[in-house]
């Protein structure tokens, strides 16, 4: 077997990609909401976390992994929809600081409520695939069945979002509602419903990420499980450009790879510093984001 496949560099790249796809998914979910409502959802990690707890509560009733995943998705649809209808809808058109404060507050409330109901003790989630890394010629390889499942799921989610937005009438209406809500209304598009749908979809992307993260990172599910991932997802979205879904994903994946190399070659503690340094430099060079075509940014 080629020793290159088990070399340090390949191990770092694959490890980085594994983390990177989750950053990319979080960044994508942030971009979905930003593009449709102009709101930076600081509760984008906490809302799916809550939905994951709700869905995996079915474990107590002897349901398996897949029914729990379906329950998580249903919970995410409900949480995303209700949040938009009951909380976010009152924030449209208000000063920029209002939604930021409200969503940070919502993050704190969700984490506190989740801790009160389910406790802060890490809760291990079942996995449909083994997390034990494959061996190549007796040496550990960077991939495991679960990591392949994680990559495949992330690719399917990204492809589904791309197909939805690019090739379907619903996607066209979602994009139109975000870009020109008044014109869309004049054409008969029910913009209010589509904004709710945008939040629902974004929370579903988030819950899939949370399920993957909670199972793969061996930390288990906790009320704060998504806090760190959200920070890197946020950095990726800002680097890629909050208007660009492709940029968010690419930046997320690249950030994951960089973080892995920094962890391996420098220091674990330097990861966030390097990530923030990349963010600052990229914003100085391309304030609208590396992948945003227009120099104008909606604020």
């Amino acid at each position: 077997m080629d020793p290159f496949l088990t070399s340090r560099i390949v191990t770092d790249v694959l490890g980085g990609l594994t983390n990177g796809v989750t950053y990319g998914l979080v960044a994508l979910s942030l971009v979905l909401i930003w593009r449709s409502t102009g709101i930076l959802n600081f509760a984008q990690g906490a809302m799916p976390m809550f939905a994951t707890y709700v869905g995996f509560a079915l474990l107590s009733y002897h349901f398996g992994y897949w029914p729990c995943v379906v329950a998580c998705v249903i919970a995410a649809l409900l949480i995303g929809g209700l949040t938009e209808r009951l909380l976010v809808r009152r924030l449209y058109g208000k000063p920029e600081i209002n939604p930021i404060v409200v969503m940070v507050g919502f993050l704190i409330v969700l984490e506190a409520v989740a801790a009160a109901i389910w406790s802060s003790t890490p809760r291990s989630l079942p996995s449909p695939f083994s997390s034990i890394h494959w061996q190549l010629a007796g040496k550990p390889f960077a991939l495991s069945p679960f990591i392949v499942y994680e990559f495949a799921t992330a690719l399917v989610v990204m492809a589904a979002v791309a197909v939805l937005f690019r090739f379907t009438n619903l996607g066209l209406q979602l994009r139109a509602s975000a870009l020109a809500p008044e014109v869309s209304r004049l054409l008969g598009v029910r913009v209010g419903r589509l904004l709710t749908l945008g939040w629902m979809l974004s929370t579903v992307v988030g819950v899939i990420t949370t399920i993957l993260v909670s199972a793969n990172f061996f930390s288990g599910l906790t009320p704060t499980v998504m806090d760190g991932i959200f920070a890197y997802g946020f950095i990726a979205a800002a680097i890629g450009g909050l208007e660009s879904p492709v940029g968010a994903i690419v930046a997320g994946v690249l950030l994951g790879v960089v973080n892995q190399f920094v962890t391996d070659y420098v220091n674990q503690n330097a990861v966030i510093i390097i990530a923030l340094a990349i963010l600052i430099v990229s914003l100085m060079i391309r304030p609208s984001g590396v992948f945003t075509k227009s120099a104008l940014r909606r604020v």
Partner: protein
Amino acid sequence: MITIEGLTVSFGAVQALRNVSLVAETGKITAVLGANGAGKTTLLRTISGLKEPKTGTIRLDDQSLVHKRTEDIARLGIGHVPEGRGVIGEFTVEENLRLGAMMAKVNLSRGLDEQYELFPVLGERRKQHAAKLSGGERQMLAMARALIAKPSVLLLDEPSLGLAPLVTAQLMHTIQSLCETSDLTVILVEQNATSALRIAHHAVVLHVGKVVANDTASLVAADENLRQYYLGLVE
């Protein structure tokens, strides 16, 4: 037919429309004329439900439009081409048209063919982003996007704004032809009174929110006082 009676619309303490009444007859062009700030755009936005009236009624045939949502009014067959055209620059020509056709549940390919026949340049640029079109082409796209839904009423807000005289003449000719070949009711808001009066059957002149003339287009065009004081048409 659109019937408006006693319409009053306010922006805070400022009354944009004061007791406005008019009838836009089926298959006819009704021009709404007046200077900047006369309330022309507010009138169209109120018909479309973008602005709530304080008092008054708006009816499409026998159906009240007041308190209805904009999207529901659009689905009743009222097409609105807003001031500044409102084409979505990030969308291609065809995506803009697809969006227009979606809610009306018309046959998309037939609708596209009809619009490309009416505005051949749009057919040539169907894959181009709307942001890259010229002003005249954008206006054509905005009109085509409204027309593809087969509306019974078309509200046009300043279609000639920023266009060369030749392009304006072509657009006015297209609007006139549409009315002659169908039962389309058009309410045409224009500052370019000469162009509008040339094709309109009926004309309403607004001045600071009030109707100061409501007559046939030919009589309005012949009224020297209106021409001089309200339409800025000095010989």
